[in-house]
């Protein structure tokens, strides 16, 4: 097994301080400000263990929500929310592999959903207070001391990620473990993923790795594997350009509860304003014409 050379520097099993640049050991990436980082989620190797959900809640001190049974298979969190920043969806399909599957055996698609940390983030563009900002790692974070809970970011997000908490009245979402990145640590979800379905790294390297994985799957006969959120691919439509958290899927985006063609709401401002002004002008002309006829 290939071992990172820095592993040899850390021979003790217990440490009294943080290992500098620990992400080099766990994700083979050094976290430095000014570079773009993200997640590559390969859904073909997700086993639905929910380790990412638990790790996220543990590190971010998030309470369990949606108590009770959802009735949606093994899904207990239901959706992304102010208190759930990773959501593992279970999609039960009748037949996935026609040649290998036993009769009446169901097939599963599993995917760990998360904030996409869009390049042109609509939530950031909609935020009137500047509480949502781009970090030095090219991720999108809500500053809690500035958020006034207006909720404009909630409908602006084309993926339905951002949510306003009913308890503190502020918007919450995945921070891509901003505090961990600043300390040189890999995000909790990616570090806990036992199958490396969630991979953390520098964005351009992840995108290249994802392309290779798609080619590998195609060679193995999985012809329906494709990327969602890389430049020019599905999910990066509507002027979003690309998503820092992107996915490898094997079915239509809608199957995974992802929009097929998400768009940037800011692009609709100019046409909406123009049509509004045109309507006002048209009504004014009509009113003038009516009054002119009376006089």
């Amino acid at each position: 097994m290939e071992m990172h050379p820095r592993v040899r520097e850390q021979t003790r099993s217990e440490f009294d301080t943080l290992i500098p640049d620990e992400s080099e050991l766990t994700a083979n990436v050094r976290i430095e400000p000014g570079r773009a980082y993200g997640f590559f989620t390969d859904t073909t190797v997700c086993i639905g263990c929910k380790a990412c959900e638990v790790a996220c809640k543990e590190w971010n001190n998030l309470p369990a929500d949606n108590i009770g049974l959802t009735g949606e298979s093994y899904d207990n969190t239901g959706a992304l929310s102010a208190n759930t920043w990773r959501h593992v969806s279970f999609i039960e399909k009748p037949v996935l592999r026609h040649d290998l599957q036993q009769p009446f055996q169901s097939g599963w698609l599993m995917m760990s959903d998360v904030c996409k940390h869009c390049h042109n983030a609509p939530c950031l563009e909609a935020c009137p207070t500047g509480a949502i900002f781009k970090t030095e790692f090219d991720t999108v974070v809500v500053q809690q001391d500035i958020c006034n809970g207006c909720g404009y970011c909630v409908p602006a997000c084309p993926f339905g990620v951002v949510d306003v908490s009913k308890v503190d009245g502020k918007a919450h979402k995945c921070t891509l473990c901003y505090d961990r990145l600043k300390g040189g640590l890999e995000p909790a979800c990616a570090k806990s993923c036992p199958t490396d379905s969630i991979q953390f790294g520098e964005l351009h390297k992840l995108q290249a790795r994802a392309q290779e994985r798609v080619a590998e799957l195609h060679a193995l006969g999985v012809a329906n594997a494709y990327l969602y959120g890389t430049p020019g691919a599905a999910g990066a439509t509507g002027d979003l350009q690309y998503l820092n958290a992107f996915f490898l899927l094997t079915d239509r985006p809608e199957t995974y509860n992802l929009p097929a063609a998400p768009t940037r709401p800011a692009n609709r401002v100019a046409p909406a304003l123009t049509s509004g002004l045109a309507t006002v002008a048209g009504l004014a002309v009509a009113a003038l014409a009516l009054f002119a006829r009376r006089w």
Partner: protein
Amino acid sequence: MVQTVEGMVTIVQESRFQLIDDDGVAHLFLLSRHAAAEPADLAPLQHRQTRIRVHYRKARNLIGQMASSIGVLD
């Protein structure tokens, strides 16, 4: 119903904090929107290991409590 617990803050994340009471039991709190405290006030309480008293209610549909007020005991 408002309840009270005393202890020290051990973890702070945004407006959420974990308090360890005198029996060593951990409680997860979310700062209520009506509390006279901001998320920025929580980190100093953790760093100084200040003993605090928290008045709280049960949060609906959450395994956590809603902190309505925080008082410093030391």
